[in-house]
């Protein structure tokens, strides 16, 4: 049963095709069956091989692994696998409707799942390109699925910008093949460690190309402009999926390529920390000024990606696992917020938070669940965001620590602004809400709390790191969080709410498509300066 990784890719894709072929609404149940099969297979695989994944590395067709295509797993990919299975379950339950004809939607949803599992498990750089390009195509179809003008323009913006990035990634792969003679990730890792090939200009150039492609896919500054457009106009379930897990595909590539070049003498941590910090601060600045509830959440995804980059760029293993943990936590609370916001938008028929009032009176349970998500994202003690931010903070210098605090202040401010929707009189008598939509939101809230309180055993089990020194709550933490909320409230009351000219200017600031591509070239040039030209001087 060494082929389980392959089944994980093909079960969702086959189910998607069968659902599409048989034009019966009842066929939608097959999606749940396929998802169940995937879950059972993944759990079984994990329990069988968890001590040593290396026995499951394999190459298709028994070819020599220098030329063959293979799959491999390790602790990081398995944790990604379970996270994505969980988020896909939530989105599937949220969007499931056996009475309506949703087979087109289910087709793309399940196809994306299979492709994403392939991306996680592949051990071959070219297959990585194929899978990342397929996710780009499928995501742009899912974004356009609403069939409104907004969604079509967001989809084409997303498709073309990301394809340009992915093609840069492909160019990097070609240069690596030219230098190393193969595209197997394991092989290249050992070759980099055992030779000084990585100091040649070609390999440095290839590294720059790979990383600039990844920067587009994972929405780093200044290339994040596609993310708020695409994530804000998609269906709520799709937004949760995109912000929760699909955008992490780019970060997963970042982790993989960083590990591949781990032995190379590149000085990456400073540069990527700077990029991460800028992404976080710029993202949160935009988020504070927005009025559209889904735009706010989308810009917060950008800023949280910056925080993850702050952790992932570090060479220290504890800070690195902090970044990884923040990635998992973000997937949980951002999906929760997007799904909850989707219910609210459905009921109130508007996305503008100025016109949404009295949610607490109308939907108390949903409000409590949303508040759990907001507390998690703003880093309140007892919730999961707090733990991962503390782990990242632990490895930072003083100046870096204050950068992170600025981001936290912005996050608190913007969620204080968003929490205004809970106050006010009840405007709707009996909102029509489907019970089925509540279930995933509630499960995600429980997961947020669990990750916040039981972080020590979970981190030990999944990532094999000891987090015992990070306590979920103490008087000092509560005091600090209270101080943060107070400062955030002042900032909200006296700057954001007054709607000064600069605030309006930031809110309406949009980057055109040409400028976004120009930024891409600029980013690429800066990276060449840092990683190719500077070491030669």
């Amino acid at each position, binding site marked *: 049963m060494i082929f389980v990784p392959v089944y994980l890719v093909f079960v969702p894709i086959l189910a998607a095709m069968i659902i599409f072929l048989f034009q019966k609404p009842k066929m939608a149940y097959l999606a749940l069956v396929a998802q169940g099969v995937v879950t059972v297979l993944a759990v079984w695989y994990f329990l069988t091989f968890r001590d040593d994944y290396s026995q499951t590395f394999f190459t298709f067709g028994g070819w020599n692994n220098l030329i063959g295509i293979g799959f491999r797993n390790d602790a990081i990919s398995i944790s990604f696998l379970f996270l994505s299975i969980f988020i896909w379950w939530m989105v599937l339950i949220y969007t499931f409707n056996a009475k309506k004809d949703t087979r087109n939607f289910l087709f793309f949803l399940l196809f994306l799942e299979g492709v994403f599992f392939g991306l996680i498990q592949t051990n071959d750089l070219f297959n990585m390109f194929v899978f990342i*390009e397929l996710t780009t195509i499928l995501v*742009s179809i899912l974004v356009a699925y609403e069939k409104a*003008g907004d969604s*079509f323009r967001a989809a084409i913006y997303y*498709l*073309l910008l990301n394809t340009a990035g992915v093609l840069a990634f492909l160019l990097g792969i*070609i240069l690596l093949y030219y230098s190393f003679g193969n595209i197997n990730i394991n092989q290249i890792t050992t070759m980099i460690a055992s030779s000084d090939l990585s100091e040649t200009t070609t390999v440095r150039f290839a590294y720059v190309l790979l990383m600039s492609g990844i920067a587009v896919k994972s929405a780093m500054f200044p290339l994040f402009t596609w993310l708020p457009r695409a994530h804000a106009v998609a269906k709520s379930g799709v937004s949760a999926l995109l912000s929760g897990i699909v955008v992490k595909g780019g970060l997963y590539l970042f982790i993989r390529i960083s590990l591949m070049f781990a032995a190379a003498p590149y000085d990456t941590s400073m540069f990527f920390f700077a990029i991460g910090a800028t992404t976080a601060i710029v993202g949160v600045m935009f988020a504070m000024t927005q009025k559209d509830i889904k735009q706010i959440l989308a810009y917060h995804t950008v800023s949280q990606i910056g925080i993850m980059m702050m952790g992932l760029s570090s060479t220290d293993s504890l800070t690195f696992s902090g970044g990884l943990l923040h990635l998992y936590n973000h997937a949980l609370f951002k999906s929760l917020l997007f799904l909850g916001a989707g219910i609210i938008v459905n009921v109130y028929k508007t996305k503008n938070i100025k016109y949404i009032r009295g949610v607490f009176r109308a939907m108390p349970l949903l409000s409590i669940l949303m508040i759990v998500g907001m507390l998690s994202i703003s880093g309140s003690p007892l919730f999961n965001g707090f733990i991962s931010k503390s782990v990242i903070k632990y490895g930072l210098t003083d100046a870096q620590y204050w950068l992170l605090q600025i981001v936290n202040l912005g996050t608190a401010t913007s969620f204080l602004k968003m929490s205004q929707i809970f106050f006010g009189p009840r405007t709707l008598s009996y909102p029509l809400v489907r019970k089925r939509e509540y279930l995933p939101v509630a499960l995600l809230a429980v997961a947020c709390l669990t990750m916040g309180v039981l972080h020590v055993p979970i981190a030990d089990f999944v990532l094999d790191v000891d987090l015992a020194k990070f306590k979920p709550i103490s008087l000092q933490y509560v005091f600090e969080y209270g101080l943060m909320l107070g400062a955030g409230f002042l900032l909200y009351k006296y700057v954001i709410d007054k709607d000064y000219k600069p605030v309006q200017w930031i809110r309406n600031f949009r980057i055109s*498509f040409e400028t976004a591509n*120009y930024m891409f070239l600029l980013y690429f040039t800066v990276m060449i300066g840092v990683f190719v030209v500077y070491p030669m001087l």
Partner: protein
Amino acid sequence: MNPLLTFIVVLIGFYGLATSKNIIKSVFSVTIIESGIILLFLNLGNFEGGGIPIVGESLTNIVDPLPQALMITTIVIGSTVTALALMLSIKVFHHYGTVEWAEVLGRKDGE
């Protein structure tokens, strides 16, 4: 053909993306980048007088078969992207009446 020439084709594509103000031209630019990359990779695996890498022919002095296998896949994916992008630009034209980036992106949400 010199690999540097194909690299220039890639750069022309990126220049097109950074300057063209029309959605269709942007789609073309992406296609040009892709063609440049395909030509570059085929060039790197090729040499003057190399034989065809097919089992049954003489297997001495053949060109590297891997780039050809990989680039077939890239061509397939590239045609998919082009088709999808053109379909989306038709839809954008139906909704906004234009394929100029500035006009399409300049409209307010919900129009």
